[in-house]
């Protein structure tokens, strides 16, 4: 069954493609059961706080391709995240020992005139300017709410300019209003890459493994090296030529299938690159399963078994010590879908109590449609059921929940959310490096980090004593999900 349709300019949004929802309250077990037949329906909130949009997630995947350029076809405010991606770009270059250089980002600066008369001319000017200024190997044009509503035919303009300029010019449809699931922006960026950048493989490299990630530390070179494999990190910090040859890899793995579901499935379906369909490599059982599947796909079963045995032995003493020290500690986790499942796995593996978990959205299925990759089911089977909710970064709900549960540690992954825990005096950390918790060493990393965080809570206690959260007493006395409507 074809799942990834590369003939259309727009990617189907996750609500329609994966049955994704942003509102749910219950348990992880119930959520997996309801998702099996995709019968779960969206529950909308009558009050909402700001979320994130697909434009952010689309730009985040293409902004750090070192020899490409991004034209953000939008009013200037949509370039509000440029500085952040530039920071990430420079930090990543520094870590790799590369020359530091600004990311190649341009905003078309749509104004009132364009809203009335259309932004086509301005987009053409912007794409030509991108060519002159950056001499890129490819230009990605991201759309906006404004360009979408006024109806600029961005794909047609891109085709016209591609002919004129002689480099790939490709549109990424990521209007914020189209989807409440901001992860749709990842898919939109990957859709553009799959459609217009990746080429069929001329030769295959049996050792090469695509690793779909953000921009975490390089932990896979050493790990994969022991299996005779080489990681190919995508998409940030690649080159266009590297992306053209994604098809040469033996397999694709992902650090989080919320991120990479579309790209991994598309590479398998259209370019014959096997997708490793397994729970994410967090916690011992998840890492074991993930490595075994990688070994099966690449014919490295024996090497994988040796590595697993060796690693289990290596970490066992410290893990036992961490488990003893963390026994009875209650953790709360909030992160983007599968990464949230992964963090629950880590707490479970460390023997901690999971007071609750929230994910920013929930996909009822993945693009590969294989139950073996169901990370939430994996967590429930391995570590037992936990209180679980889906909340698209609604800080009023988070604060209400945390205020009730008062966990010993709050682990969060999204900007602007950590203060929810900190202002309540709950030791809180945001782990920006998504590779920090991966694999066997990642489990120890998390254990040490949690211990450090609860050992000196002075900073969060100071904040709790001297700052106020912006919520009424009335609200804190309500049930946390009382603004969530009935299933549609």
């Amino acid at each position, binding site marked *: 069954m074809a799942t990834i349709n590369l003939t259309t300019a727009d990617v189907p949004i996750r609500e329609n493609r994966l049955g994704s929802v942003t509102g749910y309250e219950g348990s992880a077990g119930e959520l997996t059961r309801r998702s099996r037949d995709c019968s779960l329906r969206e529950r909308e909130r009558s009050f909402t706080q700001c979320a994130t949009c697909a434009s*952010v997630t689309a730009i985040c995947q293409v902004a750090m391709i070192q020899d490409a350029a991004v034209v953000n076809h939008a009013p200037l405010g949509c370039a509000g995240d*440029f500085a952040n991606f530039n*920071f990430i770009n420079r930090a990543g270059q520094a870590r790799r020992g590369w020359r530091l250089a600004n990311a190649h980002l341009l905003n078309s600066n749509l104004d009132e005139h364009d809203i009335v008369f259309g932004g086509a001319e301005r987009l053409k000017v912007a794409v030509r300017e991108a060519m002159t200024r950056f001499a890129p190997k490819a230009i990605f044009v991201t759309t906006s*709410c404004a360009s979408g509503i006024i109806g600029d035919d961005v794909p047609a303009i891109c085709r016209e300019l591609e002919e004129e300029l002689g480099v790939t010019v490709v549109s990424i449809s990521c209007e914020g209003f189209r989807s409440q699931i901001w992860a749709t922006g990842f898919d939109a960026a990957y859709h553009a890459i799959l459609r217009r950048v990746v080429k069929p493989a001329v030769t295959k490299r049996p050792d090469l493994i695509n690793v779909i990630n953000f921009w975490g530390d390089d932990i896979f070179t050493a790990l994969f090296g022991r299996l005779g494999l080489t990681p190919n990190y995508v998409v940030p910090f690649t080159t266009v030529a590297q992306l053209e040859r994604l098809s040469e890899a033996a397999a694709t793995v992902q650090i989080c299938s919320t991120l990479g579901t579309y790209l991994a499935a598309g590479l398998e379906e259209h370019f014959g690159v096997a997708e490793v369909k397994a729970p994410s490599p967090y916690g011992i059982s998840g890492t074991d399963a993930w490595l075994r599947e990688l070994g099966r796909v690449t014919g490295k079963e024996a090497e994988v078994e040796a590595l697993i045995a060796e690693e289990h032995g290596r970490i066992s003493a410290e893990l036992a010590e961490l488990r003893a020290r963390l026994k009875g500690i209650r953790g709360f986790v909030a992160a983007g879908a599968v990464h949230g499942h992964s963090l629950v796995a880590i707490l479970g593996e460390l023997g901690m109590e999971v007071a609750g978990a929230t994910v920013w959205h929930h996909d009822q299925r993945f693009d590969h449609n294989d139950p073996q990759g169901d990370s939430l089911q994996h967590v429930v089977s391995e570590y037992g059921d936990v209180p679980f909710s889906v909340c698209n970064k609604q800080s009023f709900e988070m604060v209400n929940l945390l205020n009730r549960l008062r966990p010993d540690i709050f682990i969060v992954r999204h900007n602007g959310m950590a203060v929810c825990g900190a202002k309540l005096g709950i030791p809180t950390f945001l782990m920006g490096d998504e590779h920090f918790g991966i694999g066997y060493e990642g489990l120890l990393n998390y254990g040490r980090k949690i211990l450090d965080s609860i050992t000196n809570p002075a900073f969060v206690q100071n904040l709790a004593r001297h700052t106020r959260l*912006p919520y009424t007493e009335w609200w804190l006395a309500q049930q946390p999900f009382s603004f969530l409507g009935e299933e549609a």
Partner: protein
Amino acid sequence: MSGVIEQPRHLCMLSAKQSVVAIERAVPIVHAGPGCSGKLWSGLSFCNGFQGSGYAGGGAVPSTNTGEKEVVFGGEERLRSVIEGALKVMDADLFVVLTGCTSDIVGDDTGQVVREFREQGMPIVYAETGGFKGSSFVGHEALLEAVIAQLLDLAAQERVSNLVNVFASVPYLDPFWSGNLEALRELLAGLGLEANILFGPGSGGIEAWRKIPAASFNLVVSPWVGLKAARILEERYGTPFLHYPVLPIGGTETSRFLATVGAFAGVDRGKTAAFIRKEEKRFYYYLERSADFILEFRYDLPGRFVTVCDSLYALAVSRFLVNDLGLLPGRQFITDQTPTEHRESLRAEFAALSPSVSAQVTFTPDGGEVQRELRATKHHQPPLIIGSTWDKDIAAELKGYQVSLSLPVTDRLVLDRSYVGYRGGLRLAEDFYTAILGSYQ
């Protein structure tokens, strides 16, 4: 038609939501797409000195998160529902509804929805700030206008003789805004004036705004931002205003500023002079301490300084470097899309930075154009580029020095640092020369 923008140094009108966050116990309600508030927070706060969420910013901002349904059928019902929720959930004294591109294009009658709540006695106002309509600076002006027009009674209040409303730094957009406003308040206190700074810690929240009509005058300390509000207040309440276009940094400008304000406010001249004398004594003690280093440093010190800043900083920093430190200006770039009617007066200010020094200015919001111009300029000595973190590459290419003062600032953490006044001048001198010294070690 304005051109494309590389390396943006300000954002869109909806940036006004950060100005709301800067009012104590005020909450913005953003009627826009799901990502607008977050993108603006990232650009104006996080990536601008890592200024943080504040009381009700960051992830706490109520937002309608416009979807396909609102774009097709209109978003007024959704807005009504989110306002109702915000009034129950958020603990605030003032709510400000700000529209984005989606609602302004589809034509929601936001004003009508907000009026329904205000008529029930809710402290709520609104401004149309669709991103395509203008810059962050214009957005801030729209916010000032909205609060004045919709919150304040038309009736005159009894004047408080020493009360003065201050319009200067734009919150968050200027990474040093809160420190700067506090410093202005302290300077004015030295003249016996009580400054109503409206934004930031200790500014008083909605009560401070309600006091606006009681001020004896309004003080605009900026080349153009805030002038519109001062004119509106003059018309509404007959309050006179003083427009002092230069943010005072360092000894020369701050003394001139205090003398001008003192004279306008009718402060006793002896009292003003005594305050200036006391502050100058301290300032020049420290300036003297810098003399041996500045005069004898055997490695390069910058030849010419280049500003790539909004008009507030471009002018203020130039005046300080020319008049206090004796530096000479190179190219000056003003990035804030200064409205045409204010450009001539700015050019005139730069033409007379001191009796013997003038500079030419280029108005452009596009970092690409700045780089092109700087590459085409002959630099006899390493330039000192005062701009944003974007300018690190061009500074390196020209083998110059670079200091980030202007959005985005991602190489510094900014808490209460201020560049205003005598002390602010010393901070700025420290920061410039520290950046230069740092490049040798």
